[in-house]
Each structure stands twice: as structure tokens, then as C-alpha cells.
């Protein structure tokens, strides 16, 4: 068996009387993009939070590259897991530059390396350097989201979690960001776990998918299986 980047082994999570998952086993292959699909309330976000240790499993275990999550040094472990959320979560009191470089500064990278990484990320995201001295509220939604991604990728984490990152963006902006994500994945391949409720978005970007359905077993498969599933799924509902 080849080593999976992220694996949940027989995980139960939620509350004793109201489980979100029971005995869930999912694997995420290295450097592949996997979309998590499902209706709202089916535990898509909880799945991400299990992976970065924000939620502890009641049963089972979470493995990163074959090793169990170490909850005693979870803050340090999270440095290798990028995290992007819908409303960017950019810190309003920090400039764009400080937001992006935050993790690099915490990791005490040398100045030269910080600047090189900053410029590289800004370049790939096609963000003008004039934005660096601005504050988040002065940027457009699309710009903010790119900055959020740059921030999450600063330490070049092998895993990137994305929680409906583009839900609030309009079509054109979304299209531009998708192509940015593809370029990014070619330049720096990593394991991406992407929560969305948008099937089209998923078909557009993912290699694999996991379809969660509350109280039922999850369905997992390749991208090409997604279309046929969508047809039956929409016919059913």
C-alpha cells in the first residue's frame, strides 16, 4: 500500500448522542486534489477540523503521512497544514505583507528567505506589490482570497485544507482563481483537501472526491465518476 498523505481510520466524531461521523475511513493520496462534497450539516467542515486537530476524534485515528496526529504539539503540527476559509480570516490590524509573512516570521526564517517567498507567492497570485502596505479591508474579495491562499502557503505546507474558499466570489473572479490554483498545483504540488457544495467547481478541479451523506456511508471515487453521480443525484432529489 502506498503511503497516503492523510488518512482517517475508523473515525467517529461529534457528540456521544449525536455522531457526525461513525466509523469513517477515508484516504487522501499525496499531491492529489480531493473535493469533499455533501449537503450542509453533513460534517464537511468537521472533517477538515479533524485533520488539523481542531476537533478530536471520539474513536479511531487521524494519520498524516502514516503517523498519528500528536495533539500535545498540535500548534507545531499545524504549521505543515495550510488552512483557507471562506471569509479569508485575514487579520484586520496587520498589513497584507504581515498577514502573508506571519507564519514565516513565527518560524523565524531569515529576512532574505522571507522576502523571496513573499515575492514568489505574490507573483504567482498575480497580486501587485503595491498591495503589501495596505490593510485587508482595502482589498477586493478576490484579492483578499488570493492573499489568504498566499498566507496559508507561506511555509510551503505539504497539505492544504480549503473550506469553501470561493463561495462568496462571483463567476469571473472564481474562474481566475481556479486557473491560479492549477498553476500553483503544477509549480508546487501538494495534497489539497477542498470542501465545497458546488459540484461544478469540484468537477473542474479535483482528482478525487468524497461524497458525505449524513447517517450513510460515504461515496468515494475519481473525477470522471462525479458527472454520472451528479446526474443520478440530482434526479433523485
Amino acid at each position, binding site marked *: 500500500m502506498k503511503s497516503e498523505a492523510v488518512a482517517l481510520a475508523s473515525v467517529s466524531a461529534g457528540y456521544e448522542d449525536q455522531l457526525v461521523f461513525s466509523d469513517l475511513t477515508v484516504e487522501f493520496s499525496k499531491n492529489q486534489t480531493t473535493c469533499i462534497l455533501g449537503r450542509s450539516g453533513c460534517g464537511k467542515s468537521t472533517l477538515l477540523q479533524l485533520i488539523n486537530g*481542531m476537533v478530536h476524534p471520539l474513536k479511531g485515528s487521524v494519520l498524516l503521512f502514516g503517523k498519528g496526529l500528536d495533539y500535545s504539539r498540535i*500548534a507545531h503540527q*499545524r*504549521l505543515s497544514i495550510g488552512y483557507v*476559509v471562506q471569509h479569508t480570516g485575514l487579520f*484586520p*490590524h496587520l498589513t497584507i505583507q504581515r498577514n502573508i509573512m*506571519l507564519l514565516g516570521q513565527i518560524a523565524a526564517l531569515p529576512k532574505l528567505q522571507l522576502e523571496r517567498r513573499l515575492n514568489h507567492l505574490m507573483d504567482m497570485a498575480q497580486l501587485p506589490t503595491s498591495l503589501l502596505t495596505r490593510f485587508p479591508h482595502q482589498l477586493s474579495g478576490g484579492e483578499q482570497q488570493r492573499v489568504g491562499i498566499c*498566507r496559508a502557503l507561506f511555509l510551503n505546507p505539504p497539505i492544504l485544507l480549503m473550506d469553501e474558499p470561493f463561495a462568496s466570489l462571483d463567476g469571473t473572479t472564481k474562474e481566475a482563481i481556479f486557473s491560479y490554483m492549477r498553476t500553483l498545483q503544477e509549480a508546487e504540488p501538494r495534497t489539497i483537501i477542498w470542501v465545497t457544495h458546488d459540484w461544478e467547481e469540484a468537477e473542474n478541479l479535483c482528482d478525487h472526491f468524497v461524497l458525505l451523506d449524513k447517517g450513510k456511508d460515504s461515496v468515494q471515487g475519481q473525477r470522471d465518476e462525479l458527472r454520472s453521480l451528479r446526474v443520478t443525484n440530482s434526479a433523485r432529489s
Partner: protein
Amino acid sequence: MTRAIGLALILGLTLTAYSQGTTIRVGAKHFNEGYILSEMLAQLLEDGGYKVERKFNLGGTAVAFEALRAGAIDLYPEYTGTVALEILKMEAGLSTSALNKELLDQYSLKISTPYGFQNSYSLLMDSSVAASRSIATISDLTQHPDLRMGLSYEFTKREDGWGNLKKHYGLSFDPLSLEHGLAYEALRNGKIDVTDAYSTDGEIRKYGLRLLRDDRRFFPEYEAVTLYRNGLPEEVTSVIAKLGGVISETEMQRLNAHALFEKQSHKSIAHEFLISKSLIRPVTATNSVGYELSGKIAEHLMLTLVALLCSIIVALPLGIFIYYKPRFAYSIVYVAGVMQTIPSIALLALMIPLVGIGKLPAIIALFFYALLPILRNTITGLQGVEPSYKKVASAMGLNTWQRLSIIEIPLAKPTILAGIRTAAVINVGTATLAAFIGAGGLGDYIVTGLALNNTELILRGAIPSALLAIGMELLFELIERFVVLKHLQQQNTGVS
């Protein structure tokens, strides 16, 4: 922050430097004559080459004596009758040497040669009212139970005061209690008919009032003397002794009247008197009012800022601690809240038995007052940080300390700053009361003004302290503009 600590250090060092060398700390009881006599002692000592720290405004006998016993002052003018009855709790009429022996045995204190005049308690009436009813002695009052009597607070409480006087003469009045400084007003306006007074009060001559003769010899002798610590060097006591036998009762009445009606400062009255008796050499440069005022303002700011700084140093970490351990929140905020409800004057009075008088107890009291607003705003500020930022910070991999220092504290800053601002403004106001326990500052004018019923003096303290409070408010607005980003500034920062 560093600048503020530096400022406090400089202020602290100045204070320490000031108290070094042979400094004699002269106390004063809280009334005209007390101030004048203390000024005389202070100027005699200064003329003798000593550095003098004036700790005036010590309230009544209890505070002044407690300050002397605790070593917060070295000497103050007192009266033999008060020493015998109030301090030693013995009968009046003891000789100076007998008093000295008892004082030395019980408290290691001494009294000097008497100054030459007596200031005994007596009862006083408007002369026209007294004449119309032909009242000349205290005994005569028994025939006029309809007269209204108003007595000073101190007189109603003393051994040689109202309680025993009433028994001694068989009087049947039900007196009002009022501030001594206001009793003359009340007497002249016909609000009361009889009051207690000191026989050297300046008003007696000025208003033509009648002192009622103590025909059954109730009031003990009140020779004015200096009460001082036994440990004082002999050179110092010999300087004090110069005042022995040089002031007569009429001279004292005249000096008191000067202070009262010509608004001459105690300093210059004492100065002129000592010069006229050739007891000191003339000093040309006396401090101007402006110079004195700026000194008081500096003192006032020092009290306020040192206390504020200490509160910040304690309340910020405590607030952060409570934020992380909310189960302590209730009890700690409760204790700080209770502190706030203690009336300022009561909290200051409570400090006297614990840490004596002066700046330290005042700073401690102000420290407690500033604690709650800073503590509460630190906690609410941190709790009020948008939860999604806290969550994102954790999810990114920031540990607790990094999350606190990089995200939570900066975002809570406007609220924390508003708490410090509230505390600063409260402290500027409360610091005026600190003068009651000898801490100085602008309250000195107010307290002295109240004692002398002198509006001009009250305003000299009240107006600058009001301006100071406004200035403090503006200063913090400026600070906020500099340290808080514009888009994070709150519309209404006054969380109180």
C-alpha cells in the same frame, strides 16, 4: 510604555533625593492657627539651615498625632489640654514637666516650652444677642434653653467637649454638628446662636463676638506648644525652643485675623512675625503663586501617573490570566468592584493605620481605584475579539502565546486603552482627596480652602484639577489616534 516607566522612575528618584539629608518634617493641624504656627516652626528651622518638608493638612488631633507617632512627621504644634485629655487620656491641669514625663514614657515624645498664649475652647455668641439676654457666662445659658447651638464635629467628640460640658453646667441643648469654618457664617446669619470657638480665633475681634466666661472652670488650660519626637537632635530642639514665650493671646488673634480677612498667606504672616521678633533673617525670594501651583500640579500628576502605571502593570497580566481561566473571573472582578465602591475618603482613611500618611498610602489607594476599569476592559476587550480570528489563528498553527500577542491583544487594544483612560480620569479627580492624608497635590488648596472657608483657595485647586482631567481625556484621545489603526478605532471607546 517604556517612556512611561522612565517618567515614573525620574519622579520616584526626585522624591527620594528630596527626602535625603537632614530633612525635618513639620506637620500641621487643619485650621488657620495650626498652619501659621507650623509655618513659624518651618521657617525657624529653614533659617537654622535645615531642609523642611511641610506635611500640612493633617486633619484633626487623631491624624496629626498618629502621623507623629508613626514617624511620618517629626513635630507639629499642639495644645497642652489636648495632650492631656485626648492623647494621654489623663485629667487636665498637669504641669508641662508632668506631661513631658508621661509622653516620654508612653510614646517617646516631648513638648517644648509653651509659646506664651492659650487657645482654650470656649463658647461664643453674637454680642447683641448676648447683650439683649444679658448672657456673660456659660452658666447663664441654662436660663435660655431656646437658643440654637451649633458645634464643630471635633468639639462634640472630645473629652473636654460637649458631653462633659453639658453635665458640668447642666445644659439642655440639642446641638447641630457643623464644620468649624462654617460656624461663624451661621452665627452671623442668625442660623445658630451659640457655637464653640478657640479663644484666639481671628473672627472674635473682627465681628465683635462675645466669649462666654467659663465661670465654673470646666475647660482645661490649652497652652500652645510644639509636640516632637524624642529622637530629634538637640540643635533642632533648640531652634524650636526659640518660639517659647514670644506669642501673646492678642498677637495670635491678630495673626489669625490677618490670615482670615486680609487673605495674607500663612507663609508671609509667619515670616513677618518672626522678622518683627528678630527670630529669623529676612529672606527675599519667596515662591510665587505660579511657581507653587506648578509644583502642586507636578505632584498631582506624579500621584496619578505612578498609581496608574502600577495598576496597568498589575491589571493587564491579571486580565489576561482571567481571560484564560474564566472560573477566577467572577471572584477577582468582584473584589476589584468592591474596592471601587469604598468611598475614596474612607479608603484613604483606612490607609493611615496601615501605611501612615503621605504619598505612599495615597498612591496605594489610587492604585486600587484604577484597577477595576483596566481589569474589566482588558477582559471584555479580549473576550470581544471576533471568534473567527481566534479560530483561524489557532488553525494556522499559532500557539497560545503567539495568538495572544500577535492577534488578541492588538485587536483588544482600543478597549484596553479606553479602560486605562477611564482609570486616569478617575485618578485625577480622586487624587484631590489625597491631600487629606498629607499626600499634597492640587487637593492641598481645596482642603486648606475648605478649612478656612476660602473660596478663592478652593478654586485655585479645583480649576486646575478639572482642567487636568480634561487634559488627560484629550491626551488619551491623542494616544489612541497614534497607537490604534484608524479602521479599528471604536466609535464609542468609553466603556465604563
